[in-house]
């Protein structure tokens, strides 16, 4: 029998890389001004910092503008088919726990056609990092509403407004047992990098929703909260162990209210009444409540890590079973297998 060794990656220490190492020679083909550029830059700048090997890194995507991502990262990559990236990445990550597997896709790709694979990957806690670029629109097919588009949205396929309530991706993920859930946005590179790093470091499935501007078909969708001049009053930073507080002068905060949470003025309630953020609560209820704070992106919206708990990832359990059988049965013996049912000899 042949002995086919899986590659081990380059030898020795991880060689330092620069941003340029992570860039491919392919022309980036997003529209000028698209939010996807800044997300790409954030990742290409982060990678050297993470100290990972390019050959050990894989980007898997579906179809959509966002899903072009792998072509621009000088790693291994697969631009697959619409909606299926989480499933393909699941197989890859389970087969090859030595790899860092990232999944990139749009709101249509991952929440519409790919919704089921997404929630199952989260439930199983597959060791992949999922980045959902949410522009609340179908970009690549030129502007139909998506499952995150607001009700009433006028698009090519909803000329007098869409009739559907959107998903809140963070709520969906938490409802699906996700162990790591975070939100960030394309206008804050530093924040993106912090969140991507956390996603990378998390064992198991990490889910990151990135608010991303599609300047062609849904321009300004997140302006009301992410623009520099309103950001301080509209984005609520989630800081582990800290009271949740925001506003240009820290004048606002988040406090529990009737089982959920609400925005309060610190002056009214006092600092001690604020909710102290704990992403690691085993019970996801508070994280879920935080996700309900903004049911539309024109209300103050928590940004950061909603939830991060270590609950054992699927691949480790799966490989432990392989080892367990190997241990209990000894070396794989094909001949013994073929003779394992009653045999007779002529």
């Amino acid at each position, binding site marked *: 029998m042949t002995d086919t060794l899986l590659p081990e990656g380059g030898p020795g220490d991880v060689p330092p890389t620069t941003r340029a190492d992570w860039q491919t020679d392919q022309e980036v083909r997003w529209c000028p001004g698209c939010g996807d550029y800044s997300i790409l830059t954030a990742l290409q700048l982060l990678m050297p910092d993470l100290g990972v090997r390019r*050959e050990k890194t894989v980007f898997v995507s579906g179809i959509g503008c966002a899903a072009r991502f792998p072509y621009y990262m000088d790693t291994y990559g697969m631009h697959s088919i619409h909606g299926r990236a989480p*499933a393909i990445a*699941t197989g890859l990550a389970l*087969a090859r726990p030595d790899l860092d597997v990232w999944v990139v896709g749009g709101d249509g790709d991952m929440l519409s056609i790919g919704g089921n*694979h997404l929630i199952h990957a989260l439930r199983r806690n597959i060791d992949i990092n999922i980045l959902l670029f949410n522009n609340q629109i179908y970009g690549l097919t030129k502007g139909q509403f998506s499952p995150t588009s607001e009700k009433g949205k006028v698009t090519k396929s909803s000329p007098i407004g869409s009739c559907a309530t959107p998903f809140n991706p963070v709520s969906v993920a938490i409802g699906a047992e996700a162990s790591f859930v975070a939100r960030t946005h394309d206008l804050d590179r530093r924040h993106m990098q912090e969140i991507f790093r956390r996603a990378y470091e998390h064992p198991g499935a990490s889910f990151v929703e990135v608010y991303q501007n599609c300047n062609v078909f849904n321009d300004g969708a997140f302006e009301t909260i992410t623009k520099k001049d309103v950001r301080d009053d509209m984005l609520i930073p989630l800081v582990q162990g800290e009271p949740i507080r925001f506003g240009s002068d820290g004048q606002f905060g988040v406090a529990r209210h009737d089982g959920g949470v609400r925005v309060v003025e610190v002056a009214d309630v006092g600092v001690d009444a604020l909710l102290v953020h704990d992403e690691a609560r085993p019970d996801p209820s508070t994280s879920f409540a935080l996700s309900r704070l903004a049911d539309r992106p024109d209300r103050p919206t928590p940004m950061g890590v909603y939830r991060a708990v270590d609950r054992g990832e699927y691949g480790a359990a799966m490989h432990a079973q392989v080892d367990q059988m*190997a241990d209990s*049965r000894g070396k794989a013996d*094909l001949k013994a297998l073929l003779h394992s*049912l009653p045999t007779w000899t002529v």
Partner: protein
Amino acid sequence: MTETAAESLVPEVGGLVIRFAGDSGDGMQLAGDRFTSASALFGNDLSTLPEFPAEIRAPAGTLAGVSAFQVHISDHDIFTPGDAPHVLVAMNPAALRAELGTLIDGGTVIVNADAFVERNLAKAGYDHDPLEGDDLDAYRLVRVPMTSLTKEACKDLGVKTRDAERSKNFFALGLLSWMYSRPIEPTIEWIEAKFKGRDLIIAANKAAFNAGHAFGETAELSDHQVVVRPAEMPAGTYTNINGNTALAWGLVAAGQLSGLPVFLGSYPITPASDILHELSRHKEFDVATFQAEDEIAAVGSALGAAYGGHLGVTTTSGPGVALKAETIGLAVSLELPLVIVNIQRGGPSTGLPTKTEAADLLMAMYGRHGESPLPVIAARTPADCFDQAIEAARIAIEYRTPVMLLSDGYLANSSEPWLLPEVDDLEPIPVGFASGFNQVDEDGNGVFWPYLRDEKMVRPWAIPGTPDLMHRIGGLEKEDGSGNVSYDGANHAHMVAVRAERIARIPVPDAEVCGDADADLLVVGWGSTWGAITATVRRIRNGGRKVAHVHLTYLNPLPANLGEVLSDFSTILVPEMNLGQLVRMLRDEYLVDARPVSKVTGQPFTPAELQHVILGELGDDA
């Protein structure tokens, strides 16, 4: 003792077809299976046909609830579960009613007389007791009060009456073992091993089995007794195997032969689930089984694993293949190895999930958008599923392509003696991942081109983790060689042609003509019809008529000599368990007037049926 008796007194017959039938709860599959095992150990050639209802537990006593197991044992090599049973064991009126029609005229009917009470008769739709009327005049009826005799045998064991009753299948098995001179020991040993630790059950089953055996001896049944001598079979070690187990083992073997870990992504579906079950029990062979959320994720995960350098496999049945079509198309475009196993069943739609059919061939060929060719191969017998699983993996790995392996519900569940191969004789499957640059760029630097092809038109398999070979692949058309996305029309035309040619060029063994090469009539088959066709051709030739047979394992590409072979015959018949699918491919490809012989009743062809058609064709109604 029995064996001595058999050898001295009992008349011999060359072969015997026995059908066990009863309620789903009556344990007929088990009884049939045990009878089969004992016969295998005894040395018969054999072939089985289990049939069960689609319901988990169909209502007791009804026609819908009847579960049957047919076994053909023989003193010479055989190929099918038989034309029609010689013996029918009917555990209740429903079983009698549902199955009597299958029996040969003059055949033996062994009934559990205790079950023929009014309630059961009514449930079976009888308005009278068939044991009393003239219903069975054409048969040899053996009435045995199996339930009461079983209870009687167990009465001192401390078993609850209900539990004792449950052992009546072992009573039937004991009786049949006596009548047909099967060895006792294997069954006794099996009972002891199977129910280890549950002593009461062991005791009851053994008591019932012995009681059945004794009943045969003591009741006046010796005129029913016959023996089927062991068959002369090639020397070697045998095991009795069904298609799904053989297929699962073939996948394990392919992993070992290639040195690749096996990754099975699968979603349960009848009749394919048992492959998932079997593989999940052999993780020590570096076999990972992943039960996905659906068939799309199943094939997707297998493709992901294949990208990662594993032997990616997905197993399913027709509805699952339909769902996988888009992802298989991606695999065609990515040119990655992938094995897709389709255990075909009755369709369309949910159809007849527990019955066999082979109507997915054209879907295998054409069931994807765009020009997306892939190799298609089909197994012909249960044991052949082992070989073809390895062959599918070999083609997939060697030619970097998804391969469709076709089996069907009949092969999946029926069994035959399998001469076990020597493991060391199995051909290794070379892999050879790419490990370095394969091209220089304008500046003279080494670069890696993922779509640079070798002489077989195969692209390199460069798996993540390999330093320097980072590259991106995807379902958009790519430039041949560099693998960069390309919208260029000429490149696309080239790639479409390359994808077609690289599959068309895969060398496959020539088609072999069995039977009379100088006959006028050729029977062309594929898949599980092999047994029935082989048996038929032998019969017809034994009858002094000429007929030839070509059986195709390779459906795409077809054997290079096939056109020539076909041109030698004036009549070409193509029996298929569909309305005529291979026949379309042959007509299209070779412009020969091949004609379909169709059967879509959920059961395999019998030799008798084929004989009738072929003799009719040969101008002989005999």
